[in-house]
Structure formats: C-alpha cells, structure tokens
C-alpha cells in the first residue's frame, strides 16, 4: 500500500499547516541567532505551494515534489529557499518513474534530499544547520512501511534538532554570532524536523 500522488498532496498540505502553526516559533528561533524570517519565509513558501498544487494537480509523486521544489525556490528566498528547493528537487528526481512510493523509495528520496542540501550548502554535521536534523533522519530511515520509515526519520530529526542547541554555528547567518550562537536551537533543523513529523503523521493514518 504505497503513497500515491494524491497521498503526497495530502501530506504536503499537512506540512503547510504545520509550518503555518509553527510560524511564530520558527521566527523566534531565527530571531535569536539569525534574522527572524525563517518562519515567515517558509509559511509564505508553503502557502504558495498550496496554490500551485490547486492549480496544477500533478499526477505523479515526482511531479508533486517538483512543483513543491520550484515553488519553494521562487517564493521562499533566504538560505532555506534554495536548500529546501534543492532537497525537494533531488527527491523528485530520485523517484522519477514511480507511480506510488514504497518504503524504499522514501528512503531513496530522503537520501537524495540530504545530498542536495549538502551539495548546495556545503554544511557538515555539527555545523548547526538543517543538516544536523536531516542527516540523522536519513541514517535512521529504515522500516518496512512508508509510515515506519518516516516515523523513524522524524524521531531522529527531532533528536538531531535538539542536539543543535549547544552547538556553535559554523554555517549560515548564525555563524556570525560565533560563541553567542550556542544555547539556541537551529531554526532550520527545527523546521526539518517539523516537516518530517508532518509527513510521518499523515503516513501513519
């Protein structure tokens, strides 16, 4: 029982809702060690994604992911726009021919997404970025159902995001703060975890 294009659209809608709900929290996290726009940027981006999905009704999971990617790239801006955009774009390419996504496809998509973020942003584990949530998520992403894979990934991402708190940022805007960046969760790691959690919850229904 795989994930169809329609299922994926449902999941993306849940992601958009989650982002809207956590908009202020993400703004506050970014305000502490960045410039306070992360929640606003993602919210604007995912609202545009909803509009795009309403207009286009893409007919494969890959097409859904590509619509998400191009919309995020053109609507989010900031660091997160190209990073999440590239993540979704690589995920789309990874599952190009599938009509429904099975557990293994999801693992491949997540792996490709991480590859895209690292290729674009050149952050390493421990740099206090979204990689610190996404990398452990990919490592933990195993299981024999889509729901199991995503649930494991979300749990690992949550731990990874928590673990960014004591870190000193070495990439992104927080790096300008040097030592003062320690003691705060990285907003991008937090949003990565929120996205994965929303995916996992829809898959578990």
């Amino acid at each position, binding site marked *: 029982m795989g994930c169809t294009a329609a299922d994926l659209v449902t999941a993306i809608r849940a992601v958009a809702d989650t982002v809207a709900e956590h908009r202020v929290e993400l703004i506050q996290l970014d305000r502490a060690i960045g*410039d*306070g*726009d992360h929640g*606003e940027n993602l919210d604007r981006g995912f609202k545009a994604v909803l509009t795009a999905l309403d207009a286009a009704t893409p007919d494969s999971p890959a097409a859904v992911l590509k619509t998400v990617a191009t919309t995020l*790239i*053109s609507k989010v801006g900031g660091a997160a726009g190209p990073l999440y955009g590239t993540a979704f774009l690589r995920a789309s390419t990874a599952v190009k021919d599938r009509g429904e996504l099975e557990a293994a496809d999801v693992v491949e998509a997540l792996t490709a997404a991480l590859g895209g973020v690292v290729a674009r942003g050149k952050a390493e584990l421990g740099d206090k970025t979204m990689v610190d949530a996404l990398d452990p998520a990919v490592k933990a992403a195993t299981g024999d159902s889509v729901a199991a894979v995503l649930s494991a990934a979300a749990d690992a991402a949550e731990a990874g995001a928590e673990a960014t708190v004591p870190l000193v940022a070495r990439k992104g805007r927080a*790096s*300008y703060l040097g030592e003062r960046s320690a003691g705060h969760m990285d907003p991008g790691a937090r949003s990565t975890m929120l996205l994965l959690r929303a995916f996992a919850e829809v898959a578990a229904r």
Partner: protein
Amino acid sequence: MKKIINDPSTVVAEALRGIELAHGDLLTVIHDPAVILRADAPVQGKVAIISGGGAGHEPLHGGFVGPGMLDAACPGAVFTSPTPDQMQTAVERTDGGAGALFIVKNYTGDVLNFETAAELVETDVRTIVIDDDVAVKDSLYTAGRRGVGGTLPLEKIVGAAADRGDDLDAVLAVAQRVVDNVRSMGMALAAPTVPHVGEPSFDLPDDEMEVGIGIHGEPGRARMPVENADGIVARLLEPILEDLPFTEGDRVLLFTNSMGATPLIELYLAHGIAERLLADRGITVERRLVGPYVTSLEMQGMSLTLLKLDDQMVELWDAPVQTAGLRWGR
C-alpha cells in the same frame, strides 16, 4: 510595533509602487517577479550590473539603479534574499549582449539564490561576492564575512567601469580589486523591527550597545556598555585598519553610514572624529560619503567603511552617476 504600513505581507510590494511613481524618470519597476530596472535597459554593448538582496536596506539596492551604477536590482522580502526568478528576469531585461555581473553580498541565502539564478540563465554571468565586514572572523569552516557597507562603493565603482565600456572580464577585475580593498564595521544602539516579526530584532538595555552588527538585525559579535562618540568611532575604526591593514600613506574613501535612525547631526559628528583619527595615522581621506545609504530599517547606529584607493578607483568613483540615491556629475 509602530510603522507606516498597511499589512506586513504587502510592505515591499507597496513600497515598489511608491518607488515606481517617485522615480519614473529613472526606473522601470516590474512587480512579478519584483525587479527594478533602469528606465533605458537594456543598454546595448554594456555589461549589465545586477544586484539585489532583502528589502529594508534602502536606498540599497534599488536606489542605486540608473546610469553609472546598477542596471537592475532584485528586492527580496524584508531582510530576505530575493529568489532566482527575480535575477533571471533581471538578466533577461538588461542583457545588452556583453554579459552580466551579479553583485552579491555574502550571506548564504543571497549566494545560493544568485547561484541558482546563474545556472538558469543563458547569458554569460559572473558573480562577485562582497564580504567586507571585519566583525566576522573569516574561516574556511564558516559562512565567511558578511557583505555590508562596502557594497555601495563596489556598486558605484563597478557601475562606472561598465559605463565606460569595460568588458565583462575587466569589470570583474575592477570588482575584485574593490572587494580586496574595502573593509567595514558597524554598531547599533537600538534594533530594527521587521514588519512581519512585530518586535525589535534584539533587545538592548538602555545602557548597552551591540558592536559588530550586520545589516539584518542580527545581533552583533559583542554587547557592551554604551560609549561616547569618540569611543564608538575608535572601536569601529581600529579593527578595520588592522584588518587590511590600512597604513600610513594610504589614500582612502571614508564612508560614514547611518543604519537608519541615527540622524545626520550625529553622523557628521562621528565622521569628523573618524577623519581626525585617520589623519593622526597619516592616512589621507581623498573621498568621503556621509549618510543613510546601507540601512537596516530603523536601526539606530552607524557603520564605517574604508576603501583603499588608487587613481583608477578615484576616477571611477568620481564618474557621473544618476540614481535615486546617489547622483553627481550629470
């Protein structure tokens, strides 16, 4: 939050309408995706100079579009880098057959979005990244230094080089020389308030200041007790001088910049102190600029930028420029 706005989500779009109406003689504004073009774009045979960045730094960048400076500016949301479709449109509309130069302030978001745009267009595009903020320690393992006040002399000088007919390689070489020779540092007495955030970007007690701030309301490298003007200016100037370094006999452009809410009377006062400190060290201030040019909304504070000059840079700085924010010589 007290602001003259209607809705945080339409601030940039509404401001662009005002800019369009205010400067119709100089500029054409495209609203979707948002791009500010010089009215006579494309200029055939000229390298197109394109910049952009988050809104909230006005007059940077849109105020520097026009003959002698930029061909296009791409405004993002407030303090948020613009998106690749904006740069793509900017390139298409300014391409005069001689290629384009992207002037990008060194922030991860700006760099990534301009990089994506460069991959999307067919025009021959080069990119210069400006990273003049000495408050940030550069290292291979970080995002590197920020681009701040030095962006203005870069855009002015590079714009003049393109204007006189330099080809893309030559324009890039001029740009690189400016980047190699310009350094800045800023401080804040009070934070700006981003419209969609609704509260100041950082909280600063009445007796403290942030030193080494960026232009996006990022907190600075250090918070310390407020000092008088002599103290503040010295604290900004010393790290700049040490960094390049600037030494006795150097000729410089001194750019004393208000972050927004600091009034001209204080800025001139600070400028006078900076000139005196430079004179004491045998550094000759040959050109100067004083005003709110690279701002951070209503942030209260200032920055200093020093550019080591040579004859060519002086000539390009002095060349005519006709923009909303900077105008001389025609």
